[in-house]
């Protein structure tokens, strides 16, 4: 087994004075997906923001390939190789679909997206339209495309399937599989268990800001997950 690519240990953080994430640890290796599960309000998105550097870690460490990055600002983390697709406001609404994809590409070339367009033809059809005019699910497709195509070694996805049709969720799963095969490490926050079961190698289940269940997919059966996900 290859050494972990992204590791976080004992991470604590939140908003203002409220600790939303409390001593959460985990890791993800190249070619693997770590799925973060839990009911809403349990701190999953906050964990992503801590990993990406939007919020400071009050305690704990974050390491990329063994280098401590918890003190770095967001753009620096991106530069070191972490891509991020946020849950809310996942695209630049004022920009066209094309600009959303090519914003940071010096050549403005759309060729690298051919594979994605084949699966999500809606994006190819709406290239010149403002991304703000897309539906919530379509924005998620665009966001995922942008994030995966950056081709970085680590990708953080926050609820990529929210509002997306099942057929496209399957395409998402296939694209994520492709990235995995290429050696990318992914952390995916999900609410949709069916989707999570398709892509996850490991689960990390959170409740009230804490880790309640962690382990490889094969060792955790559905019933144990449901206890923490259902009402």
């Amino acid at each position, binding site marked *: 087994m290859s050494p972990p690519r992204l590791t976080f240990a004992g991470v604590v953080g939140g908003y*203002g*004075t409220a600790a939303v994430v409390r001593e959460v640890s985990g890791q993800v290796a190249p070619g693997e997906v770590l799925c973060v599960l839990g009911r*809403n309000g349990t701190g999953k998105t906050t964990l992503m923001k801590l990993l990406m550097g939007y919020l400071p870690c009050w305690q704990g460490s974050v390491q990329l390939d063994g280098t401590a990055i918890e003190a770095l600002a967001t753009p620096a983390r991106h530069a070191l190789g972490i891509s991020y697709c946020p849950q809310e406001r996942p695209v630049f609404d004022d920009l066209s679909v094309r600009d959303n994809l090519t914003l940071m590409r010096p050549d403005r070339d759309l060729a690298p997206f051919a594979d994605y367009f084949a699966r999500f033809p809606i994006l190819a059809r709406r290239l010149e339209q403002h991304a703000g005019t897309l539906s919530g699910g379509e924005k998620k497709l665009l966001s995922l495309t942008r994030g995966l195509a950056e081709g970085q070694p680590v990708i953080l996805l926050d609820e990529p399937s929210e509002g997306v049709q099942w057929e496209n969720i399957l395409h998402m799963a296939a694209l994520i599989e492709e990235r995995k095969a290429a050696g990318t490490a992914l952390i995916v926050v999900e*609410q949709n*268990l069916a*989707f999570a079961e398709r892509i996850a190698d490991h689960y990390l289940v959170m409740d009230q*800001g804490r880790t309640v269940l962690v382990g490889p997919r094969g060792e955790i059966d559905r019933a144990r997950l*449901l206890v923490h996900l*259902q009402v």
Partner: protein
Amino acid sequence: MRVVSAALVALILLLPLGLSDYRAYQLALYFLYAAAATGIGLCWGRAGFLPLGQAMFFGLAAYLAGLTLIWLGDSIWVFVLLPLAAATAGLLAYGIGLLVFRRQGESGPYFSMITLALSLLAFQLATSWNDVTGGFNGLKGIPGLPGLDDFSAAYYVSATALLIVLSLGAWLYAAPVGVLWRALAQNERRVALFGFNTNALKAVAFGVSGLFAGIGGAIYAPQQGLVTPQVAGFGLSADLVIWAAVGGRFGLLGPTLGVLLVGALTTELRDRIGFWEVLMAGFFILVVLAFPRGLIGVIAPLVRWLEGWQRTRPAVPAPPRRGATEPAQLTLSDVSAEIGEVKILDHLSLRIAGPGIFCIIGPNGAGKTSTFNLLTGELAPRGGCVLLDDAEITGLPPHRIIARGVGRKFQIPTIFTDLTVAENLCIALWSCRAAGIELLMPRLKRWTSPMLDELVRRYPFLAAGRRRAAELSHGQRQVLELAMALLTEPRLLLLDEPCAGLSPEETASVIDLIRWAGRKLQIAIVVIEHDMTLVKELAETIYVLQNGALLAQGDIDTIRANADVRAVYVGGEK
């Protein structure tokens, strides 16, 4: 406190004995500017909006006073009419404030620019209206105040004017309205959700600042003997703001300090150093970058030390809350709402009949918090209606709805961190119990209620009144926020994740408090909660929202058995 004020008064009164006539004369002029600058401190430092055209009120009062003096000469009536001139400026400011704030509650840069434009307009009127104002050359030949026309008399008149302004200011800062202004600057929406008409409060602040400027202006006319359009224009307006900023806008005496300091520097530098304005510009930039709280902030530690000495005075029981007290009956029928293009409530109908504890659950974006916003009047529905008991509350402004007996706690605590714990509790106690003129009475700060006693018994940290709320831990903030909601003794209490971020022990005590309050007050309590353990413990009835509509309702077992609810929480292949 009294000793200090007495010393200050004595100092101001005795100062001329040690100063030359010229210094006294100079101070007399600065005192008048200081009166106006104090008003800026009140608006900007306290109530959180920046007036950029304050000279307009100074100038208006100066012209009115000038015309009065020319008309009446040395009649004793001027002593009646001069205060009226100042009051007119205050009333004008109050009127402008009411109109502008009522329109949209706007208190950001746009309010500032309105006042700036008004001040330019005033300057132009003063310049063009030759027959009345004397045009650009000004209103001349204004006689001095009868019997008070030498340098030291002028000094005492100015000093008295400033002392009146400062005393009024000290009183207002100590009164409930002063506390509310500071709360308003920090979180205006929250103040409205305690049932206060924030727009009226801001208009009062602006009116008082206009009055302060007017007092300065009314004395300026007889003291200078001439009123020119400059006193109504942009230059003086900008100077007043700069002085307040440099001295420190947050304290009562900061603006006065700024006026005296910048005034003294200007006078000393003006005729000695060729490029004195460069020095002044550099000085302003330095103060803004290095002392954002103004120069008075430099001596803040001394002030904190002096805060130590104070007397405790007996508590006063608060009167009962105004309005109905029976538990609320809430009906939402077919309510839809949008933010921009996004539909957030979609034909939502539900009915909550108090007393009792009710939980709302649902995934992200289901419309839970939006429902609360709707209930407190912050979200305007596009269709449908909301009934509280049998009266429609759709479309009412938040403070009106709160007055009908609604209380709310936010998910992230929105206590006023710049205020003390006691001030936070006071605001809640005043909510729906005090209004209008009562807000001017400092004794309201000593109010207490049986509910407060019970809360303090359960959470002793609430008794440490002088502690700033910013120093509280997260758990304490959650409790304080909840305590504030309970102190208003509403009929319908809306709690948004009251236990978010709390430790298990804190959670247990908060749950206990909520249940106690439910029993004791016999009201309807609606809780948004994610933690199913807590939902199970608290709720008699659970409402599940999904995509802005009601998906299911019933007790915990009904909800658990519902297939739609399961699908929402685990996702599905569709």
